[in-house]
């Protein structure tokens, strides 16, 4: 059972008080009629679904009934932070730089691969 800190109520509450409402920070296209079917389908259905750090929305159904965001690891289920709607996360997934083994590129210390959990 997750214990989630509601940033509005400013309290830890049990998972059962909330409902999960999907990936966060997805911007609805400003003019749906003007974009392609492909772009509209991408917006409606395609999701990041990472194994690791995920930014997602939760709704405090049995509490203040407001939406907020959470940064949670989808593998360990550890919640790193919760933050109000409209804010940006402090904890983000490290950017992974792909090494190209076939072309034998030299990997500099700056280009270290991020931790893929």
């Amino acid at each position, binding site marked *: 059972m997750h214990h989630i800190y509601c940033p509005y109520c400013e309290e830890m509450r049990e998972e059962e008080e909330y409902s999960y409402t999907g990936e966060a920070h997805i911007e609805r296209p400003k003019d749906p009629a003007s974009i392609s079917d492909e772009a509209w389908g991408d917006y409606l259905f395609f*999701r990041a679904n*990472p194994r690791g750090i995920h930014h997602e929305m939760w709704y405090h159904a049995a509490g203040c009934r407001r939406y907020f965001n959470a940064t949670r690891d989808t593998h360990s289920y550890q919640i790193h932070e919760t933050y109000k709607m409209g804010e940006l996360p402090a904890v983000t997934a490290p950017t992974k730089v792909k090494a190209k083994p076939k072309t034998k590129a030299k990997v500099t210390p700056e280009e270290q691969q991020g931790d893929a959990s």
Partner: protein
Amino acid sequence: MVSIIKIHIALQRIPSVHTMKKYSGFSLFKHSLSHHENWQAVWRSPQPKKQYDVIIVGGGGHGLATAYYLAKVHGITNVAVLEKGYLGGGNTARNTTIVRSNYLWDEASKLYDHSLDLWKDLSQDLNYNVMFSQRGVLNLGHNLQDMRDIERRVNANRLNGIDGVVLNTAEVKKIVPVINDSQDIRYPVLGASWQATGGVARHDAVAWGFARGADSFGVDLIQQCEVTDIIKEDGAVVGVQTTQGFIGAKKVACVTAGNSGVMAAMVGLRLPIESRPLQALVSEPVKPIIDTVIMSNAVHAYVSQSDKGDLVIGAGTDSYNGYGQRGSFNVVEHTLSAICELFPMLSRVRMNRAWGGVVDTCPDACPILSKTSVKGLYFNCGWGTGGFKATPGSGHVFAHTLAHDEPHPLAAPFSLDRFNTGHLIDEHGAAGVAH
């Protein structure tokens, strides 16, 4: 007796297309003579070669079935199945073993019914007992709308040549004497759909049967081999980077269920999939009391009884994305409260083990069987909460897609681009599991 044994041994030395040692009553007797010390390993554990014609990523039921049919039907045997853990250790090991084909839409029901057809003779085909038991499946209705949906779905099934009957409360009670047929409870049983040809099968056995079959055709099953990257050149697949080194192939098929998004990200693709925990649990063994499968959409529970006597119970998915192969207890509690209302005599039965899988749910509760924008890269995923029943059918049609580089007619409606064209096939109702 000794001469019969000698003839049998001689017959087994006749070279054949594939070298599988046949299981039979006679082989059981023969092995007893050497105290069962000479049984051969069911499959080889080879070192991966540098190059294959086809790499199948994911050694679960669907991946192994794909490998088997690729070899058996299409004669493509230079194939490797790469599994990051042990064969069938993912969702194949964790499901509630239900097999049925009573879905609503033509496209979905035809695909699942094709799979049901293959289940019927699977033990014979694989020479491996998959314990397919056609004990019937009940989908309960608890209110007027449920019953209307059931009438509609059963009629759709019958129009498609799939067996189905609408039952009333008394008829359900006759099949399941221990069910609560009171009309005064919160979710009374008003009736059900009944697919007599549905049932259950042994989940591990179907994986092992397909593994043994694929291996006997020369397919390499490589375990403890995790794919860490998909390598492409000029927009086409050339191979995969793994924890056991680089393995080349012109065709890479991802059959990775909940981890499909991780695979897709390796080539910069996104999928319309969200990976959710799906929990299941078994009770302590009890005497035979339920000899069919009972599912309830409304109360989020489905139950059958294994041959060992345990009640095998499944829940709806947890609502959040999760790769942890575990979920939250409130979901289990919710399911068990439904079970207790439906089967009051089970209120004292203790639960023995609970676990979870990672199910790849799609927005329309239908799978993805598709080529991609990357040449040579194919995906078979998105089966969500209903993949087990499709194990043979999925492998069979996907093998066709791989062999011909064109989707099998039954697989064609399930391409990835339906999420951009809008041709979704909504099977949330028939999926029978809360998402």
